[in-house]
């Protein structure tokens, strides 16, 4: 159904795109005859999720907690980065892990004193705001200053689901190629921060760093970019620096 699992390939394309004017003609025709009656609705389809996201945002604000939503393709190193971050970052953190099947990711991240909970999404290829609200119930958030949400590995479906996060982080590993931002513009355009990960293997892969940075800058000029490798540790200080800067500058962490 989504591009990630490729199951839309079999579906015949039958969507008609109306011009701006055609519906108005149809409507006036409708009023003058016994033809169809038009009911104008104009309601957002994700209103339910957006409402739940606002409730989450209020909870995060009350708790003075910085919340980040980490989104990437499978295998781009979210879990590895979060494991490292639990060891290296000095503020109290918690993690919500969204996963399709096993709870290996949550186990890998788990550390003494680090609240970690798994959200199993079943067949859903993204987390939604209500899943976050339920997932938080299973977490002891006392004293937690940063909550990391590891979204399901998918660059398409999570794009439009606001979880109530302050910072949306999109990870792109050097193994995925320089042109990925051009292939998934909605998610990159919604990013506050792009992490270029696994930089330790960039050389071996002949990764064109300049091309990747230029593609990110063109598609997502609003995003900050940090290059890092969880394995070698390169760039982790910049990542922690970003988090600290957000904590200091976060009105949710320090309300006026």
């Amino acid at each position: 159904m989504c591009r990630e699992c490729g199951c839309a390939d079999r579906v015949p394309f039958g969507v008609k795109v109306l011009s701006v004017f055609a519906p108005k003609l149809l409507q006036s025709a409708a009023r003058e005859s016994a033809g169809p009656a038009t009911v104008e609705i104009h309601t957002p389809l994700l209103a339910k999720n957006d409402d739940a996201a606002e409730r989450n945002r209020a909870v995060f604000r009350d708790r003075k907690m910085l919340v980040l939503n980490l989104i990437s393709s499978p295998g781009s190193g979210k879990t590895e980065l979060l494991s490292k971050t639990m060891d290296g970052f000095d503020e109290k953190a918690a993690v919500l892990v969204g996963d399709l099947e096993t709870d290996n990711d949550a186990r890998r991240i788990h550390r003494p004193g680090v609240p970690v909970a798994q959200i199993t999404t079943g067949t859903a290829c993204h987390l939604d705001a209500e899943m976050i609200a339920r997932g938080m119930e299973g977490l002891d958030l006392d004293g937690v200053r940063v909550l990391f949400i590891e979204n399901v590995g998918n660059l398409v479906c999570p794009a439009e689901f606001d979880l109530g996060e302050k910072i949306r982080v999109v990870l792109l590993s050097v193994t995925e190629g320089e042109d990925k931002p051009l292939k998934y513009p909605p998610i990159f355009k919604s990013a506050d921060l792009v992490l270029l990960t696994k930089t330790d293997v960039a050389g071996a892969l002949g990764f064109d760093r300049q091309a990747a940075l230029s593609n990110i800058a063109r598609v997502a000029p609003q995003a900050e970019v940090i290059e890092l490798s969880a394995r070698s540790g390169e760039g982790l200080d910049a990542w922690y620096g970003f988090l600290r800067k957000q904590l200091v500058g976060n009105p949710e962490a320090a309300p006026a």
Partner: protein
Amino acid sequence: MHEVGIMESAMSLVEQHAAGRERSRVSRVVLRVGVLAGVDLYALRFAFDVVSAGTLAEGADFEVEEVPVTAYCLGCEREFSGVDGDFVFACPDCGDFSGEVRRGRELELSRIELS
């Protein structure tokens, strides 16, 4: 698979608006979808056929109005439209890349027609 969930929200709205009316057979369903909404139109069409089955909208025409992108240049303080099929938004005046999307993320049930 999120197109199915989106279509389920759409169908529940359709039923709310159509039920109890004199003419409650839905002959047309129109969605407004921004090109940056992250929705696959093929999947949406498929989801409509699946989700509308057995509802007041079964067999209705399904249409999507695509909303093109409008971006905003902070430097020039002007809006400009994105070029079709190209997701790099460069201001036509100064050439700067813009990440500020003003329109193009819409995802809404626009209207229905009853007969």
